């Protein structure tokens, strides 16, 4: 791919948004009024950014309990997310879903599963709908390496390949399922090898290199839009924070600090900034971008907290969708 075709500034801005959005959560979480278990994405920003840059608004996106970044990269309103995390009526799910179940149907995000592997068939299902309807929407489904151990992973890949469905599987292989390392769980560290067994076009990329992800996703999305059947991308990366909450695993003894420090050197933002220096982006430009983004998020968070809590009746009203016979 010609580097001139890569929207470098957009990629940088999206990664900064994803990072600052979550750093804000780290900042306020100790106040204990954001009562939802947050699963932070810090360190993995290049993946959501590089993939979602290729998606149209109407394309479907399926995410997991670690969902914030995918929603934001698809265009979700940060304030609607923050309000949801605060359990407010202005949240993207009126306070019914919290951090693990965001939904933005207008952006093709119809709901989010927090059961590991539970969402993988959903991306295949939206792709099946597109295929039966003959529309040109594609679906992308994000999941972690842990989900590749679930039956739904195999069931979904098999069916998508069988029906040649327009779905992009993105495995964010960060090496851990809660605190269990990959080598304790799987005999082969390359999840994408299994996708090949189903006859699915597969790429394995450096998940901390946003342009590597962008280029793989470019090839994948072109194949999907041309009706070439499903594609699988494995992006190798590392999660800086613990499985849940703003803390870090080395503090609990679950991981070595040294391992984290090594990966911090591979920070997707720092690496990209170094590359963009060729384009004349300076450290002060970057700092200004961070400050601007942070100020926007500060305002979004404060507005979110001003929203009302939902009325109690809401939980009864939302059990069934009204209608039918």
């Amino acid at each position: 791919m010609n580097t001139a075709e890569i929207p470098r500034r957009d990629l940088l801005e999206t990664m900064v948004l994803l990072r600052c959005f979550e750093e804000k959560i780290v900042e306020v979480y100790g106040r204990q009024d954001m009562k939802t278990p947050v699963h932070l994405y810090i360190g993995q920003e290049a993946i959501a950014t590089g993939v979602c840059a290729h998606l149209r608004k109407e394309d479907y996106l399926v995410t997991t309990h670690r969902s914030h970044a995918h929603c934001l990269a698809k265009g979700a309103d940060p304030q609607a997310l923050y309000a949801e995390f605060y359990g407010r009526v202005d949240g993207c799910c009126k306070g019914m879903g919290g951090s693990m179940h965001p939904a933005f149907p207008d952006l093709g995000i119809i709901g989010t599963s927090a059961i590991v592997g539970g969402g993988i068939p959903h991306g295949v299902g939206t792709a099946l709908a597109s295929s039966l309807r003959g529309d040109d929407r594609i679906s992308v489904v994000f999941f972690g390496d842990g989900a590749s151990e679930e039956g739904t992973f195999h069931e979904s890949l098999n069916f998508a390949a069988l029906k040649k469905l327009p779905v992009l599987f993105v495995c964010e292989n960060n090496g851990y399922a809660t605190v269990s390392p990959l080598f304790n769980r799987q005999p082969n560290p390359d999840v994408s090898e299994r996708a090949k067994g189903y006859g699915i076009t597969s790429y394995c990329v450096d998940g901390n290199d946003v342009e590597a992800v962008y280029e793989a996703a470019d090839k994948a999305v072109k194949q999907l839009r041309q009706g070439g059947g499903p594609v699988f991308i494995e992006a190798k990366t590392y999660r800086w924070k613990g499985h849940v909450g703003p803390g870090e695993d080395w503090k609990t003894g679950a991981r070595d600090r040294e391992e984290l420090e090594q990966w911090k050197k591979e920070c997707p933002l720092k690496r990209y900034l170094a590359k963009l220096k060729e384009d004349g982006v300076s450290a002060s430009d970057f700092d200004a971008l961070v400050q601007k983004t942070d100020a926007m998020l500060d305002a979004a968070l404060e507005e979110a907290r001003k929203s009302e809590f939902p009325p109690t009746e809401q939980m009864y009203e939302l059990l069934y969708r009204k209608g039918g016979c």
Partner: protein
Amino acid sequence: MPWTAVCISKDDSLRFEQDGHRCLSYVEALNEAQRQALDSDPEVFLIGEGIDDVGGVFGSTKGLKEAFGDRVMDMPIAENGLTGVVSAAAGVGMKPVLVHMRADFLPMSMDQLTNHAAKWHYMSGGQTSIPLVVRSIIGRGWGSAAQHSQGTHSMFLSTPGLKIALPSTPYDAKGLFLSAMQDPNPVLIFEHRWLYDSVGPVPEEMYAVPLGEAIVRRKGSDVTIVAVSQTVQQAIQAADTLAEKGIEVEVVDPRTIAPLDMKTIMESVSKTGRLVICDVSCKTGGYGAEIVCRLAESDPALLQAPVHRVSFPDLPTPNSPVLEEAYYPGVDDIIAAVEAALS
């Protein structure tokens, strides 16, 4: 009304035919309902293991593949994954029907049904709904044993967000299915293999039997029998026999156990003061337990005698014909239960 009738014998349905009513078997009614649903809406599709086999799921899907092509699709042996696939297709507005040849295979779908489909509308703050219909069939006899004859409906009762229907007549088999197809929520339909050949009046046009509305199948003043699925036929037979002894039994068929029409059941029990509950699954944790508890919660004085349940024992189904015979309750057991309630 012919639509409320339960035809026990061929003579019953012949009488309706002579009166100008078209009669179909339960399986023909199901087949017609699916054909009409597929015909009326291009977003409807059917999927299930062996759905396009020559047998066509005991005849219920026979001929549909030929008529509707890719909208009637065979399914890999992957019940949970595919339940997730069709749920998401429903989530973007399609109208899938998932068919399990046996109700025993439904627990394979349980994660996607109970953790996902049932809760999607709720978790999304009302933005997404899952208009999914899942058909499954309760088996019985011929040594079907412990994994091909269960009524698994009670397992799903404690999951808010699901609707559960158990049609007992050909009329309801079609009407409840078409109602489920119009419902924007996930609906599980439990059919009974032993009802497939039963015949009764079924209108040709599309119609709906509302979910959540019980029906009084037979009026009586002495004892109320609440029965579902195949046990409705048995309850009617028991009631006919008891009538010869001067005992008037009222038979109530809830038709859906979620939502459960307690109003109709309460009205009947208010009148009779005595209650027998019949089910096609094990006793413990069945829908009958829920009915009795709700009665006790609202007005325990309504019951003038102990409640009796006619269900399968709390055992897996055995294979040997001798054991099978002992395992399944029959009309005589219902008669005995009514007599016990009166004694």
